[in-house]
């Protein structure tokens, strides 16, 4: 008698997708080091991804710093430690809140955009047309986009963190007459190498995940225009999940090396 365990279809699909995504990532690493290098397209993608997300990241960062300071202030004031605000806000934003929130914003803005763009190119046979003309579409479309997000998302996060700290400084300036110079002196005194370095390293992985999932969903899009919407939607969901998983792993690993 054989005892067969029936695996629910959604769990099976999940593991199949993980396998396909890993294969897709493997293909990226294989192609990224082989010629021809599509520098022109890479620069175009860097410009598109970086420049077009700048305003969104700036506004989100500013509001994040503003709200975080406003919400924390009363509790710290009750304890009589308002002077801790610059250090507390800066460490929280630089280490965790800034990278994660801005990466999630980028997942919504960039990953869904890549998913929809490549998805519509797939269903309108533009990717096939590229292949037929003797160009490797994976290299031209996928490798350049993943490289661009890996390079640009960390820059966007650094920019977002800076704007968030600026927002926080404005609240402090208005609420307790702390000058911007004094505020940022406190910030730079509080921040250490072990706050900035691990937080910056993980942003490269966030960027890689955003590009990888968006490209994977778009490049393998099926089922016509419905599939394009699905690719865009699932790209955001999967990327957001992956950002939290990467964040957990990063904190766990860096805790071993840097005792954060």
């Amino acid at each position, binding site marked *: 008698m054989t005892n067969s365990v029936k695996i629910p279809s959604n769990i099976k699909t999940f593991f199949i997708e993980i396998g396909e995504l890993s294969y897709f990532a493997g293909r990226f690493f294989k192609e990224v080091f082989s010629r021809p290098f599509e520098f022109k397209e890479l620069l175009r993608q860097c410009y598109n991804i970086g420049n077009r997300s700048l305003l969104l990241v700036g506004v989100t960062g500013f509001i994040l710093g503003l709200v975080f300071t406003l919400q924390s202030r009363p509790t710290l004031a009750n304890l009589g430690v308002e002077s801790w605000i610059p250090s507390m806000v800066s460490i929280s934003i630089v280490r965790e809140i800034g990278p994660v929130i801005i990466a999630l914003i980028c997942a919504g803005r960039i990953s869904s955009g890549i998913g929809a763009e490549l998805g519509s190119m797939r269903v309108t046979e*533009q990717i096939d047309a590229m292949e*037929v003309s*003797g160009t490797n579409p994976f290299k031209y479309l996928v490798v350049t986009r993943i490289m661009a997000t890996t390079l640009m998302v960390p820059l966007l996060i650094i920019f977002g963190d800076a704007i968030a700290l600026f927002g926080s400084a404005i609240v402090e300036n208005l609420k307790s007459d702390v000058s911007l110079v004094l505020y940022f002196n406190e910030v730079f005194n509080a921040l250490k190498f072990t706050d900035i370095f691990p937080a910056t390293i993980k942003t490269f992985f966030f960027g890689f995940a955003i590009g990888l999932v968006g490209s994977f969903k778009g490049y393998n899009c099926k089922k016509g225009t419905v599939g394009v919407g699905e690719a865009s939607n699932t790209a955001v969901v999967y990327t957001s999940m992956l950002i939290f998983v990467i964040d957990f792993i990063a904190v766990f690993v860096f805790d071993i090396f840097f005792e954060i």
Partner: protein
Amino acid sequence: MKDNNHIEPILKIKDLKKSFGDNHVLNGFNLELFDGENLVVMGKSGSGKSVMIKCIVGLIQPDSGSVEIMGKDIMKLDHTELDFLRTEIGFLFQGSALYDSMTVRENLEFPLRIHKDKLKRKDELVLDALENVGLTHAIDLMPSELSGGMKRRIALARAIILHPKIIIYDEPTTGLDPITAKEIIELMREIQLKHGSSSLIITHDVDCARVISNRMILLIDGINYVEGTFKELLALKEKKVRAFFK
């Protein structure tokens, strides 16, 4: 009909089979396309015409059978060799498949990327291709600014920019009004006469087949059911064949 008995075909498909699950689309399809010939393959929707041409250019891997282009079996070529062989084939997609983030000029320059010698003459080649389709004024437009007929013409210009030996047309007149469809057919004839290329045309448009074909194949039940000139097929009394000409 010309005697092709002693001439090597430029494109040869032998016993091509392709299934998607239980759906057997191609069940041993054979085809020979000769130099300078216009061969039309007709079949119902879903009969496997598009699958067959995608097997020719390596976009779909067949289950069995062989595809030889200019004597080279495409299944035995590595990726680089296949990419270079593909530049000998012009492909007009059913929906034109213009790159919508690029201008008409950039669309036409794209196939030149892997030919450094031709890339140096890109302006001349782009203008020449656009002159062939009568759309030089559209050079800086985006695909979203073009009508359906103009898109098809630009796609045709892109397909011929490398002066390919074989041009594959996937439903070239589908979705166009009768007048534009006639213009496209006329353009196909002009290009064939000017460049001397061979054409493989996939269509279910009887008018297109009548005007352009030297020879025809009816693709029914995944095989080349019957072959001959348009007149020869028109004269057949068989029910399955008659259904195409009603």
